[in-house]
């Protein structure tokens, strides 16, 4: 009888210890779950950053193409058409066709006063097929990193010219 009682006591003690251990394990698991839920998984994307880059990319291309330049009051769009076509614009009236140079200069000024001033990494390209007419970039960016793109198509004498502006996060 005494031995049976002792056995019962020992069993109860071990049961209580197991329950204690189980509680500790449950608590630690819950803590880990909390950490995973709030610390790792719950990383929300920045709505402002996403909106700003998206607006920047699309507005930049739209506004850029409509901007009037010093070259005979022609727009950037017209300069692109001429530069990608037969190049007939003589901006300085010096007998040299210079729409491409003017375009390069104008875009350089605008980008340096906007995207580069705001330290936004970007890649600007004007291309027709595999022929890259103009390429400008700024900042360190990874080709695979998240970006927002602004795009426009300009019809020229030699086919469509594609304008793309990628703004990286």
């Amino acid at each position, binding site marked *: 009888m005494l031995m049976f009682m002792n056995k019962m006591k020992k069993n109860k003690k071990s049961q209580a210890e197991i329950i204690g251990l189980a509680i500790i394990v449950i608590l630690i698991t819950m803590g880990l779950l909390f950490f995973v839920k709030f610390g790792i998984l719950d990383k929300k994307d920045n709505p*402002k950053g996403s909106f700003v880059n998206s607006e920047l990319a699309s507005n930049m291309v739209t506004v850029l193409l409509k901007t009037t330049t010093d070259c005979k009051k022609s727009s950037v769009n017209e300069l692109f058409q001429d530069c990608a076509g037969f190049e007939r614009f003589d901006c300085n009236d010096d007998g040299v066709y210079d729409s491409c140079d003017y375009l390069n200069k104008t875009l350089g000024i605008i980008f340096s006063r906007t995207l580069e001033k705001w330290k936004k990494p970007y890649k600007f390209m004007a291309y027709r097929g595999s022929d890259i007419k103009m390429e400008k970039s700024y900042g360190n960016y990874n080709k695979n990193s998240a970006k927002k793109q602004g795009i426009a198509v300009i019809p020229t004498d030699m086919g469509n010219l594609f304008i793309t502006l990628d703004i990286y996060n």
Partner: protein
Amino acid sequence: MRICSHTPAQPCIKMKTKKAQIKMFETIAVLLIFFILIAFGLIFYSKVQRDSIQDTGKEYFELKAIQTAQLVSFLPELQCTSPTSVNIVGDACFDAFKIIALKDIIEDNYGYYFDLFGFSKITVEQIYPLGKKWVIYNKSSGKSSKSSLQIPVLIYNASSRENYFGVLNVDVYE
């Protein structure tokens, strides 16, 4: 095994007391660890909640800046219209004369525009060719923290029929 079966009563009671004390300490230690774990949990939970509230506040603040920027972008008082039809509105385009006129309109109807823009500063800057900077609306809350947005816009000069490259700056104060 009974240690105190052939010994006098006094040491046997002492042994039992020691055992009970050890058990009591064991229980106290277990309780202590339990409460420490609960305290850690509570601290962690409160920190997570505090961070979450701060993030929500920050997100709301940034959304307010986006809302204000969009409001200004589509403000009929600023938008370009086609010379042939007022119903055709230019995309991301502000009329230079409307920008100049809006400052006076806002001063005359301050309450209406305060409901729209709240504590913020709205400016339009001519970038190419380098030109003027118009402060359309300025109402500071006195707090230093602000959320800023820059959006490229076209500034149309109706008299010279030229389009300038401009930037709409929106600073929303907390």
